[in-house]
């Protein structure tokens, strides 16, 4: 499992890509990815294209992200999730808190 982050040129969008397992082993990396976020960032995109597995700690991390950035960020997108991962996000009603693509 790995986490990659990328800031857009205008510093208004943060991309986080997660491959393999999205679980508690990423807690620290995930927290670091949005610590000291420039105030210019208005959008965060979580790309789950290469994510094979997800557990509830990942849901916790996403909720943590949402809580800690909601005063600054306009939208958090969860994109390109595989059907089975998407199903879990839907069961958790994450489509109401996030923009699940």
């Amino acid at each position, binding site marked *: 499992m790995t986490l990659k982050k990328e800031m857009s040129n205008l510093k208004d969008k943060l991309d986080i890509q997660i491959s393999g397992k999205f679980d508690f082993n990423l*807690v620290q990396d995930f927290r670091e990815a949005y610590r000291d976020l420039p105030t210019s960032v208005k959008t965060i995109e979580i790309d789950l294209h290469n994510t094979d*597995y997800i*557990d*509830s700690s990942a*849901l*916790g991390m996403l909720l*943590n992200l949402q809580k800690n950035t909601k005063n600054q960020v306009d939208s958090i997108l969860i994109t390109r999730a595989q059907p089975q991962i998407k199903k*879990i996000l839907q*069961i*958790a009603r994450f489509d109401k808190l996030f923009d699940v693509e």
Partner: protein
Amino acid sequence: MHILIVDDLAINRNILATMLQSQGHTVAEAENGLVAIDKAQQSLFDIVLLDVMMPIKNGIETAPELKKIAGDRFLPIIFLTSLDDQQSTLDCLAAGGDDFLSKPYDMAILSAKIKVLQRTIELSEKTRSQNRQLSQYRKQVERDHAIVEKVFANLYQQNRYYPDVVNFTLQAASSFNGDLILADIAPNGHQYLLIGDFTGHGLAAAIGILPVAQCFFDATSKAESVAKIAATLNRRLLELLPNDRFCAATIIELAAGSGNLTLWSGGMPNAIIYHTQQQKTDKIVAQHMSLGILPEHSFDASVQNFVTNSDHTITFYTDGLIERAHSEQLFFADEHLAKIIVEQPTMGPQDIIEKMQHNFPNQMSCDDISVLQINPALMSNKKKYGDTAISVNFTIEVSFNEADMRQTHPIDFLLEQICRTPELQNERSIIYTILIETYNNALEHGILKLNSELKNEADGLLYYYQQREQRLANLSSAYVNYVIRYQADQKQLFITVKDSGTGFDLPKNLADLNNQDCFGWGLKLIESLCASCTINKEDHSLNLIYQIQ
């Protein structure tokens, strides 16, 4: 040497005995044929000196019996004779005599004759011992061949095919066949075939069949592609065979339900497609070099595809079938074969071989001959199975102890075991989520007693997992036990989880879980994903039923 002297006159025996003993030989004496035969039965003599005229049993009668007693050993007989007429000499020779000694006896002559016979005896002994060795060797080879023949017979028993679709004949030039025909029906119902011809014939050629068969049946049991089978066989033969040995082969896959044909062909003569309705033929030309020649990087595994929607018969064969025709007509042997097939399209493999042998009788065939005929259209009524292996009921019971739990993911192990079944493999992400949630819940709450509310703080999540790591490191004699049972007909997965701690406890009302909380998601997920989710009040184990879609 040990010499028997047979003479009715004691004086004659004495003279001879004295002569022979002075030369270092040992002697025995007999006064007539009957006594001589008796003595010859009791001890082995190297030479017999035999008088012709004796009472009771004369020399001419005695000689054949002495020879008979000696069996395949060479026992020279020297007739003692004063007779010098032609008829007597002929009688002696006919009775088995090897030489004559005339009276009066001459010491120098007798000694010279014995030396000559001694050389013959030695030669005969040498031949006899070589014969024995040869016969032992032959028996050994026969035994070895019988074993190897049994191995090949067992191998061909593995062949499985649809008898209405596939028909073949192998005809070996010697006791072992350098040709091979392999057939298997894959789990998906497809018919796989391989017809091949190793360079040379006999055992040296046949030996390569073993690895080829092994690779072939291994691949067909997994319904691997023809291209992959070709590449695997090529690599295997490169590894095993000497440089000047290789295998011409055609590998065929006939799809169940359609009869569509995929084939890879290297180094084989043109196969003949016969169109029943138009009564004409086409060729399938081999596009590659034989297997076991080209290194992996330059090997071409590309295949040919044929759609067989009408009534086709396809005849594949090895070089042996057209070899004799080749030597007479050069390049047109396969056209001759095509003509034969058009004239008599109902001929089977054996008929084709006989017809070709009849048409080109001049030379003895010295190569193996194989003919394989297929009727692809008949594959259309064969049942097609799913492209994956069958699924069965199973039960897995695993208990993870604290050492297993300190590894990052004991659940990965469990997932691998479960997902060997195809329909479970398709849902592995969901199954993983269910398993990891049950596992984390058992470990973090049942055993380690972690406080989930920590997770609501910004860095609380991090702190929570640090706590988890610490407590796990200090844990002793703990377990999380899984019993997983799959009911294949219902497509239901039964999961029971029990831990060494306080076990599971559902919040009073799952639906009341606060969506804003960063915890409590695990059980909610499990409940939503499973058809049934209950907690045993006795041992606080969790019981789940997951319905495969």
